[in-house]
């Protein structure tokens, strides 16, 4: 297994007070000096509550942290493929990074432009990051829609004509249509109903195999990680509290915090009449 991403001493600070002519700025530490590796072919779970810094990590991985908040102070490095620092990539380098690292976000409603059709939404990465002709693009869109459990007719529909689960499928389709190497999934299930969550997880499992994806899966739901993630990172207040193989962390949590996290959210018993 080779290392895809190496995060070294990543720190992100947001300024909490507006700088007025040289006043000293007050900072909020979102992420404080974390380091971890991400290997090819694995599903790495990043688990934490709100304020743990997990969203900030996903934005750094997607190289959009500076776009979201210009004033954030980012230290450390995220090295992709031993060659590019995701935090510093620009121009052509950034373009080739984006071809390989894509993302899915939490709320399917706000992660799509409601004024575009599903087809146009999925087409965007193809337009920006590839040179494919119109017909090739159309083929790829139809193909990816089918793989995500949607149909060709959905190309001309608008987001408000779909159910929540279908909307998230469109977002996933958009992320994988350019066949990236890495998928960053930032709480993709949190806005969905339970029965739909299971469908989407199955889709992700399926796509991981079909597209040979390596996935970083950010969540606060601990039932999911047991079934989807190979390794786990537990974050609290911007730091990594525990990490390791999922089975080990779940069955034998070393830290107090991890223990309290797990004890409060897991279905205690499996019904004994599974058909």
């Amino acid at each position, binding site marked *: 297994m080779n290392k895809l991403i190496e995060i070294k001493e990543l720190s992100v600070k947001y300024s909490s007070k507006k700088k007025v002519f040289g006043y000293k700025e007050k900072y909020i530490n979102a992420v404080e000096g974390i380091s971890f590796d991400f290997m090819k072919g694995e599903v790495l779970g990043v688990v934490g*509550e*709100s304020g743990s810094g997990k969203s900030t990590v996903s934005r750094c991985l997607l190289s959009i942290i500076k776009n979201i908040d210009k004033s954030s102070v980012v230290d450390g490095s995220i090295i992709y493929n031993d060659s590019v620092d995701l935090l510093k990539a620009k121009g052509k380098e950034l373009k080739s990074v984006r071809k390989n690292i894509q993302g899915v976000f939490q709320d399917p409603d706000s992660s799509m432009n409601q004024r575009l059709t599903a087809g146009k939404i999925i087409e965007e990465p193809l337009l920006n990051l590839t040179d494919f002709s119109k017909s090739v693009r159309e083929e790829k869109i139809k193909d990816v829609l089918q793989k995500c459990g949607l149909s060709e007719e959905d190309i001309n529909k608008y987001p408000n004509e779909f*159910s*929540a*689960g*279908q909307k998230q499928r469109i977002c996933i389709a958009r992320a994988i249509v350019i066949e990236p190497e890495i998928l960053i999934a930032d709480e993709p299930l949190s806005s969905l*109903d*339970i*029965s*739909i*969550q*299971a*469908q989407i*997880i*199955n889709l992700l*499992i399926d796509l991981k195999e079909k597209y040979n994806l390596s996935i970083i899966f950010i969540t*606060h739901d*601990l*039932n*999911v990680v*047991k*079934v*989807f993630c190979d390794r786990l990172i537990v974050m609290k207040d911007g730091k990594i509290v525990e990490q390791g193989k999922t089975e080990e962390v779940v069955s034998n949590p070393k830290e107090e915090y991890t223990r*309290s*996290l797990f*004890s*409060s*959210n*897991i*279905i*205690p*018993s*499996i*019904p*004994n*009449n*599974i*058909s």
Partner: protein
Amino acid sequence: MKKLLQILNLKTYFFTTDEETNKEIILMAVDGVSLDVYENEILGIVGESGSGKTVTAQSVMQLIPEPTGKIMNGEILYKGEDILKKQGEELRKIRGKEIAYIFQETYTSLNPVLTIEEQIVEVITTHLDKSFEEAKQISVELLDSMGIKDAKERIKDYPHQFSGGMRQRLALAMALAANPSLLIADEPTTMLDVTIQKQIMDLLLSIKKSKQLTSIIFITHNLSLVAQYCDRVAVMYGGKIVEVSPVNELMKAPLHPYTKGLLYASAFIKDKNNKVYTIPGNIPSLKEVIQGCKFCDRCTEAIEKCFKDEPELFEIKPDHFVRCHLYTNE
């Protein structure tokens, strides 16, 4: 056990117009719900979006906005009296004093422009015969019992100066200020972190044990919390109740296929094909009219009868009700 609340055949519909055709659309949010809440229990109501759980609870409090929505039918007996018939002054005596309600969003329960003190004192002076000073004193004690430190100083703060979990405690304090007998908690923990959720649930449990609060209706989609804290649970789907049973029975041996699906999906259990167990299809929109059982098109165990006739809710075992044709012959 005595029944504190009885909901009988409640039907609450919403009315809207299709923009293009100008035709009226009827959304049957709650379509014939009958449910009992006994004294001294925590009843969980579980369902996904569109199941009708929130609308049911709001119908109890007559919080359905007219003319968009209307309670078309049904009786709700609280301590024997039909509270749906109550209006004006009588209704106000029930709301807040007998039955309290807390919302998922803390800013729905709390007014952001008033201090905590002002809000709780208002509840107390409205429903209990206490003076202003007495009310203030009671408020501080209430906050203290909710686990808020430095209650005497913090009571003069505004809601936004508290964290999400704290705000939910404040909302609880306000709800309990007039000593209601029934508390309806509509997804109070959904917006909170996992560790805070546990704290709030423990708090609810301790309140029920110690105070005059007799019963709690706990609405949620989180089955693990239901398993840990509820005595009985009702499962709703498509505006109807599909199963009611004591919690342990439901967790160990659920009967309705939807309940089974929900439990397996929540636990992310994998089936033989290494896929997570899922309920196929989509949650039906309220506009759709489905013939037969509302769940039939998604049910893996459906038989022919399911597509023709709608099953009735009946008691298959003592205290265990189910709405499913698979069991009607037994």
